């Protein structure tokens, strides 16, 4: 363990081992942790999240947020409070945890003295009850405060002990805890998936019965043990096995490799194809929303990720696709007074190519005036374009054609061979196929000549031109391709709902798509999938998040920029660039 701590330190000899306890830092971090804990309480997060149990009857999601904040800051404090001594790590962690708890206790105490609710509406008795372990207040105030402080102290000490422990053990325990929380959070989803199936009883042992909330205690313990074990195995053998698999695979002939990849993809596709049967209506609908975001993400990824053109008005093309589908297939495009002005009455399949083409041309059209713009200027102009399209959709002037604020109703559902495909389950297959096609196109484009040209202009436009790359056509192609994908998503969206309103096409959609690309990894195609799952599926499944969606987005994005700026599943070269400081010494050691 001593070796472990030493190797972590930059200059162990420069600091006297006994005297480096940095209690001020630990205290300050604990203070910040306390403020954060009070903050999430005051904004109502703790109480809202309390409805979902992680472990039934033991700890709720609301309590988990507070505990996690105190724990994480205490861990940080333990890390920063000393460079050498395990004892000081523990002391620092404990101090930080205690101070965080003091802040919470102060908050509870103040809430008993004055009516905070006049300013902070969320400071309700039930919130205080959550923070005071359901004690009878004010009679048991001192007992509650003592328990709170003790809890903080224990949390901090545990964090400190973990910091002092060897990194391997720490990772094992962390991954155990993370899995418990993750499975606890998604318990409801898993329960829905297995309801009425053979394994329902076994799952109930872990997750609690159908009507219960959160994990059962033995479930939590077994998940913890299982995940820790897995983490231990993957840490000990993972690298070796991974390398082995990779070398074996690389040794195969190229055609075998390609067949292998194809088979893997086919299996994944077939599994996904069967998925809606298990998901049921609601979850299939969530999956369809995720799919539409994947389509748009793949499109915006071309514009922003491949070509480096920051487009903040991307929702415009989604709207255009949806409106073209609406106008072309609606049985009644009205003026809002029940009067039918015209109806083309096309089918979905007739309107789809038109929707895609119109979006594509709109993309090119937007591209022309912004050809000479870069970076921030481009972002602002495209943002304006997005708003123009939305406001046009809202306008009275166009109301006779596209319905103004009422939007368009009576849009044709997707019908194929007499079957209505607009129910969530069948639509899933439509969306899946669309995603596969668009994903394939995006992937081929990336590796094509124009894909290389996009890469070059992303890096340096002047040099790219000097290489013989036509900036005009290359950029317009990026805008056009991106817009076409989004138009496709919009067309499916319109047929899915059979009615559209301008409100569905607000600026926030553009931001969501951009955020999912950033989180997944700029320019990375698998990253789009991961980003969409993280930013669209998760908030949808954890409905408590809805209120705090933007806050969580903000926090997640800031954390990403600090700790994993290349995204969750980055493109290889980008990763190398952003972590050059970590890679190079590793290479030179090897």
């Amino acid at each position: 363990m001593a070796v472990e701590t030493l190797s972590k330190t930059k200059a162990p000899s420069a600091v006297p081992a006994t005297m480096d306890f940095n209690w001020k830092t630990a205290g300050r971090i604990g203070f910040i942790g306390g403020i954060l804990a009070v903050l999430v309480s005051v904004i109502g997060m703790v109480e809202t999240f309390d409805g979902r149990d992680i472990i039934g009857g033991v700890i709720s999601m609301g309590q988990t947020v507070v505990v996690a904040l105190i724990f994480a800051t205490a861990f940080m404090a333990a890390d920063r409070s000393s460079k050498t001594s395990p004892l000081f790590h523990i002391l620092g962690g404990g101090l930080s945890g205690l101070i965080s708890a003091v802040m919470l206790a102060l908050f509870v105490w103040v809430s008993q003295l004055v009516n905070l609710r006049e300013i902070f509406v969320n400071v309700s008795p039930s919130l205080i009850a959550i923070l005071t372990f359901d004690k009878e207040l004010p009679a048991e105030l001192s007992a509650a405060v003592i328990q709170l402080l003790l809890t903080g102290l224990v949390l901090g000490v545990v964090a400190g002990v973990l910091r002092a422990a060897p990194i391997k053990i720490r990772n094992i325990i962390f991954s155990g805890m993370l899995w418990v929380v993750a499975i606890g959070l998604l318990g409801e989803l898993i329960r829905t998936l297995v309801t009425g199936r053979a394994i329902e009883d076994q799952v109930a042992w872990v997750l609690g019965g159908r009507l219960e909330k959160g994990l059962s205690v033995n479930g939590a313990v077994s998940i913890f043990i299982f995940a820790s074990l897995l983490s231990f195995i993957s840490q000990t053998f993972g690298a070796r096995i991974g390398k082995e698999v990779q070398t074996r695979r690389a040794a195969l002939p190229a055609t075998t490799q390609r067949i292998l990849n194809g088979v893997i993809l086919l299996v994944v596709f077939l599994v996904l194809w069967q998925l809606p049967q298990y998901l049921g209506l609601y979850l299939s609908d969530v999956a369809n929303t995720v799919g539409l975001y994947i389509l748009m993400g793949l499109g915006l990824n071309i514009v922003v990720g491949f070509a480096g053109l920051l487009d903040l008005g991307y929702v415009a093309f989604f709207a255009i696709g949806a409106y073209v589908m609406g106008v072309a297939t609606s049985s009644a495009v009205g003026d809002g007074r029940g009067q039918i002005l015209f109806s083309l009455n096309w089918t979905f399949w007739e309107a789809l190519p038109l929707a895609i083409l119109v979006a594509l041309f709109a993309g090119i059209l937007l591209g022309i005036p912004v050809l000479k713009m870069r970076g921030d200027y481009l972002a602002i102009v495209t943002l304006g374009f997005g708003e123009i399209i939305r406001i046009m959709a809202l306008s009275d002037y166009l109301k006779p054609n596209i319905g103004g604020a009422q939007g368009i109703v009576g849009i044709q559902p997707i019908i194929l061979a007499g079957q209505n495909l607009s129910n969530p389950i069948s639509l899933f297959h439509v969306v899946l196929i669309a995603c596969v096609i668009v994903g394939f196109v995006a992937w081929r484009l990336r590796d094509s000549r124009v894909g290389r040209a996009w890469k070059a202009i992303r890096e340096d436009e002047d040099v790219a031109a000097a290489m013989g790359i036509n900036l005009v056509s290359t950029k317009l192609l990026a805008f056009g391709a991106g817009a076409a994908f989004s138009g496709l998503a919009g067309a499916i969206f319109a047929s899915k709902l059979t009615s559209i309103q301008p409100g569905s096409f607000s600026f926030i959609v553009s931001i969501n798509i951009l955020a999912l690309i950033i989180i997944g990894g700029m320019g990375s195609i698998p990253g789009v999938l991961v980003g969409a799952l993280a930013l669209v599926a998760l908030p949808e499944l954890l409905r408590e998040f809805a209120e705090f969606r933007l806050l969580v987005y903000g926090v997640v994005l800031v954390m990403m920029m600090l700790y994993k700026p290349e995204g969750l599943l980055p493109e290889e070269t980008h990763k190398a660039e952003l972590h050059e400081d970590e890679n190079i010494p590793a290479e030179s050691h090897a």
Partner: protein
Amino acid sequence: MAMLEVSNIHTYYGNIHALKGVSIEVNEGEIVTLIGANGAGKTTTLRTICGLLKPREGHVKLNGEDLINYPAHELVYKGIAMVPEGRGVFGKLTVEENLEMGAYSRNDKSTLESDKDRIFTLFLRLKERRKQVAGTLSGGEQQMLATGRAMMARPKLLLMDEPSMGLAPILVDSIFETIKLINKEGTTILLVEQNALMALSIANRGYVLQTGQIVLTDKADVLSKNPTVQKAYLGID
């Protein structure tokens, strides 16, 4: 007829009159150098030749064909490649990808590998680092990469903007050796340099640019003996 004829070009940045009637000729097979102080307009001249800037007056002709109306990206197809000032490699792409980008205009996969190998024999350092991200190369390696990338287009005329900038003397020597080699293998070179001594030592002819105007031109060896040049650019009193 000269291969490259720059006649009386006037280039502006907004109201700034950066080039005031510059005329340069480069014959096939030559190394011609353009020397001058900071801000004299050397980079501006090169950028005008390769179409990134449009002159208000004057002409740029390659083998008699006027280039003024071609957009920058088409000049590669006419046989002009450029090694930009400050290298301008694609920092996030690997060495190999940078080289492939240089061959973008040729669009034939068959010769790509052999051309890359040729560059790697010119610059052995690049071969070792073919998978490395260009942004993490040293300054000298980036210069080699920028030169190699320009050569991948198989240009008839290579424009080089201060290839010795920021390099250690030993690297400068080797870069200039390579320039000579590239020239011997048939590429005509217009070389912009601050390092006038080195540039004149490998060039056939030279031009001296001062605040947007050519003030002197002659054979390189004559120019390096010229008292004004010696005083101003060679640091010899």
